[in-house]
């Protein structure tokens, strides 16, 4: 677009297909209806109609992580409208990342956090799913909150990580560091 001289300052972000800034409607000339896509991931063709879509304007709930392990109600506390999903599939059909968004919403209703997390792992938070939802569900937002809950309250502990943190604070590597810092500053080649 900028090679054609367009002043494109907004609506462009990472240019790598993951920031969700450049959502467009694009219709190849031989099609009747456009499809949503990320502009930076779309090959332009002769006669293609392209229209940039607005950024996500849905409200994010101030959803802090709870003290105790979450349940399905933790999600509903911040995103109660999720229950109103009428399974119309609009969210799934508009997603430029081809996520089965509605199935993710169903997983939320079942309280299945690992399943929600898996569904939304490629979500770029463009918010189109929320924009088209007639029941005012915000799938990307409840999806991210579910992912964060699953991550923060993961059923198992990363014991190697915790052990390493203890080792470091107990000074386990002090001697090695002293030798190494001395060696690496005086003798460049020999560490």
């Amino acid at each position: 677009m900028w090679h054609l001289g367009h002043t494109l300052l907004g609506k462009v972000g990472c240019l790598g297909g993951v920031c969700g800034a450049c959502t467009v409607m694009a219709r190849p000339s031989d099609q009747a209806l456009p499809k949503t896509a990320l502009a930076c991931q779309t090959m332009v063709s002769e006669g293609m109609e392209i229209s940039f879509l607005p950024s996500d304007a849905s409200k994010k709930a101030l959803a802090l992580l709870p003290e105790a392990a979450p349940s399905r109600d933790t999600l509903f506390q911040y995103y109660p409208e999720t229950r109103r999903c009428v399974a119309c599939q609009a969210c799934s059909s508009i997603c430029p990342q081809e996520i089965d968004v509605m199935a993710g919403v169903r997983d939320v209703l079942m309280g299945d956090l690992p399943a929600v997390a898996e569904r939304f792992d490629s979500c770029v938070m463009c918010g189109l799913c929320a924009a088209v939802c007639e029941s005012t569900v915000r799938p990307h937002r409840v999806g991210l909150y579910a992912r964060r809950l699953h991550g923060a309250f993961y059923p198992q502990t990363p014991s190697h990580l915790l052990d390493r943190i203890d080792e470091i604070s107990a000074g386990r590597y002090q001697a090695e560091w002293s030798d190494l810092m001395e060696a690496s500053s005086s003798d460049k080649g020999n560490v």
Partner: protein
Amino acid sequence: MGKMETSKKRVDDSRLSRKNEDMPRLSPEEKDALVHRYHPDYKDEAYAEIRIGANKGERTVHEVARLLEGESPFFEKSVPLSPTHQVDVLIVGGGGAGATAALAAKAAGASVLMSTKLRLGDSNTVMAEGGMQVAVAPEDSPVRHFVDSLKGGQMANDRTLLRTLVEEGPSVAKWLIDIGVLFDREGDGNLSLRAGGGSSLPRLLRCKDYTGLELMRVLKDCVLNEEINVLEFSPVLELLTDGEGTCTGAILKNLDTGKLIVVQAKTVILATGGIGRLHIQGFPTSNHYGATGDALSMSYRAGAVLTLQDTFQYHPTGSVFPEAMAGLLVTEAIRSAGAHLLNIHGERFVYELETRDAVASAVIRECQEGRGVETPAGRKGVWLDMPLVDLMNGEGTLKNRFPNMVRQFSRYEINIQKEPVLIYPTLHYQNGGVKINVDCESSIKNLFVAGEASGGIHGRNRLMGNSLLDIVVYGKRSGNAASRRAEEAAHGKLTLDHLKIFHEARKAAGVMSETISPLLFPDYVNKN
């Protein structure tokens, strides 16, 4: 069949026989010779001497020299400097380092304002695919991580910065997990680890090939939860000082209205990222739209010392075909998982997990010496054979572990599970940057720098996965240090006096260029 197809068929035909083939590693001498001969960092004609400022007499590439020696947009302009915002800490940049810094400063009790040129989160962080290096495995250690990084950095790393990076790695990984970053796990709950180029042990934490996206999504969510004031599409155009060498604020511009915003801050953190969109030496880039090295030129004019301005990272595997994907990264983790690099004859030419500087040099050698494959658009590249990953690790590995790669190429009807792709080095990272101490403070008082904009941690070549670690460790440190400083400091006088000093230096050195910096957007963008 065209040359490209014939060559591709050779790759397909030799796949099975290559599967268990050993590739010798380079000796330190061989690697050194290869890098000196072919790496873009050693191409003399690409370099110029810096004529003014704290790094006068040192070398950098023409594209950076031009900006460092550039004039301020406000030189000899009368700008009313009555503040529109007054805060403890101003954070410039909305990527991973900026967001982490904002969270740390807020948690430490400071009043915080964030400003970003694009939207919060639209950054290089969000694109990081491979992972984050943390010495977690029982047989690993922070010391080993340090040694690998030092060797990878050609021994040019700042030892103190590097030690802090590796030592604080485990605790920041724990912090990320606590705020809900969902790293891949093993069946026993431990973090799943992968190998990276130049690392002696598997040490990469990751979230499939969406590690940066996952990090940025969560950090951004936290910033919004904390109700931190973020001015989007409002880049900083100039720093303000008290006229005596202390940073006291900055001038921003609202890109929508064109209005200037004057911020008076006790401390400023620059977290504006790197330089990919300068397209140094004509290279394509893996970087986001706004990666134009803004921190370098602004802090340099105010008197800051920079470091390692002569070295950049060209990631070995940027896509070159189709043309629309030129420059886009193919993650190094794909090579960790077994993908081969092959020239036009279908022959391997380098051990794929050498450090990035060595692999990039080898790819450039093949193409310079006529063993590259030409694309229809006239680019040169070599093959990256990804179907081998499934062959070695089992059907479905690419789809499950690299869903982003599979999707991105499938949009152009290339199935990486079945066919190789063409790659060439792409401008990826500035190894150097603004010189900082371990609290991220630059040589200018109350001016802090975090993330890619800073320099020294990675020496002359950054190892894969050390950048995500850098932005979190030093994002936190900068936020903490800047808010501590703000507790004891008062708001200072707002002046542009340093521009006069800089202009005098320009005149004295005979710098005639009309370049205005920071650039903000790439040269090819119509900014009117």
